[in-house]
């Protein structure tokens, strides 16, 4: 059975796509990550045009983040004020990202650009995660772990417009969250990722936000930024395939539930080491794709 995708303009096997959604959903439920950074490359490997993979994945992340944020809203673990500044920065970042994306699409280098961006992004994140989790796994269990201090860094309070973020218990300037939001917005637009990967560690270690509000606030920001990215990709590039997005989502929500259950049986360090290996495998596959001699000496594309 085949379904013809209206925007990607290719026929796909719906079972493969739903399965792909479920597999990435499983991993994202297990590891508590969005999964965009895995889904976009997998869609490209499957044969979806890279520009469509990025645009479509942005819309799928909107959906998966909405279902994720609902639980956090009920638990009141979303810092709306902080989220608002992150969204403000993210909106500008998404617009900037779309301009970068369009530029590379016009000069015909978007596929190379997306591949390089992913190789760098996945390579750095994968290596950092792997070393961190291996160090944690090998750490002497007798020695107590260092406790993280909950206090905002002085330099962020010293910046202009410092204000109180009550739910995060911070007194800092809104400039660092706006800058962080901007960077993640650029990534969302050019790579089709939510950016939780960057956002969560940055909120924890740079903004010093308490752990309990980090995930909810990050999801809150991701919804808005990926929604803006979806709208921009759809209106500027016509690269959002809603049929593809819905098939991925159908698999994704089921996969995420199963993954979340499976994840409870593994220790955090083991999970992170496993995820790091998956990230590095995808990175290596992309790197081989652009570094090995091509099978054909020319690329042919409709103009």
């Amino acid at each position, binding site marked *: 059975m*085949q379904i013809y995708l*209206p925007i990607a303009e290719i026929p796909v096997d719906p079972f493969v796509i739903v399965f792909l959604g479920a597999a990435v959903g499983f991993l994202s439920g297990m590891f508590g990550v969005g999964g965009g950074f895995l889904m976009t490359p997998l869609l490209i490997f499957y044969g979806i045009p890279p520009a469509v993979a990025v645009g479509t994945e942005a819309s799928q992340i909107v*959906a998966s983040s909405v279902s994720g944020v609902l639980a956090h809203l009920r638990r009141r673990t979303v810092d709306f004020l902080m989220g608002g500044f992150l969204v403000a920065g993210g909106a500008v970042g998404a617009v900037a990202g779309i301009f970068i994306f369009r530029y590379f699409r016009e000069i015909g280098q978007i596929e190379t650009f997306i591949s390089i961006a992913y190789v760098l992004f996945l390579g750095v994140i994968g290596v950092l995660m792997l070393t961190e989790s291996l160090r944690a796994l090998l750490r002497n269990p007798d020695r107590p772990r260092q406790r993280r201090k909950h206090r905002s860094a002085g330099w962020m309070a010293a910046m202009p417009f410092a204000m109180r973020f009550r739910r995060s218990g911070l007194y800092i300037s809104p400039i660092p969250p706006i800058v962080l939001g901007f960077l993640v917005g650029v990534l969302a637009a050019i790579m089709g990722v939510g950016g939780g990967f960057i956002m969560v560690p940055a909120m924890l270690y740079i903004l010093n936000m308490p752990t309990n509000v980090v995930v909810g606030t990050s999801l809150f920001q991701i919804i808005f930024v990926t929604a803006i990215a*979806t709208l921009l990709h759809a209106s*500027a590039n016509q690269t959002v395939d809603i049929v593809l*997005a819905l098939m991925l989502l159908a698999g994704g929500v089921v996969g995420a539930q199963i993954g979340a259950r499976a994840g409870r049986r593994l220790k955090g360090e083991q999970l992170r080491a496993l995820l790091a290996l998956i990230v590095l495998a995808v990175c290596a596959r992309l790197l081989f794709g652009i570094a090995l001699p091509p099978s054909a000496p*020319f690329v042919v594309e*409709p103009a």
Partner: protein
Amino acid sequence: MRQFIVLICCFFSSAAHADAIAIALTDDLIEVDADFSGADLTLFGAVSGVDDPASAFDIIAVITGPNGAYNVRPLEQRGIIWMPGDAFRLDNVPRFYAASSTRSITDIAPLPDQAKFQLGIENIAAVDLRASEGSGYPYRAALLETLEFQGQYREALGEVSFVKGPLFTIKTALPPKTPVGEYAVSVYLYQAGVLIGRDSAELRVNRVGLERRIYELAHTRPILYGLLCVAVSLLAGWIAGVAFRKS
């Protein structure tokens, strides 16, 4: 079968034009919908004024899709990666091409005819680039090779079969990636290397159904489509979140 009878009527009524070949399509409209996975196209035809058509005549049928431009880029090694270099643009290239013939085209038609009627993949859009065989030639060769590899271009023998006496059919397959637009079907009748008759028909490949509506909305009203995508995603995510609330 009904078309077939209509065809025979048409054929005899047009016999006055003294063209030695006439064709008709079973479908002049191919619809691409969400579960389109390719289509079979059957062409009926008849030759006139011959007793034993199968041995004495040769037929070439050419189906040409809508034209478009292509960019061909050479892959160049920069540092450790391979990336596409400057584009060479080829205009007026058919996005689909299929040729069916009773024997090899080079055995049937003389060279000038092959170029004139674009008989065979090698002769597609040849005019401008063949003239200057220099710099453009490798790009053109790469384009033809790629489109043939992707199934957009094909050449086949044995798809022409004689049914009975002067009647023949040509069965050809349209691939799942058949581009939409206007198609021209041309049939050429050759005898001993001389063109003695030709006929043509038109074919349309259309998008239909939900697939078409989505495509058209996305391209004619992109902002509305973008808003709808966001709304659908929000709704789908909310439904999923509520559905799995207990677990």
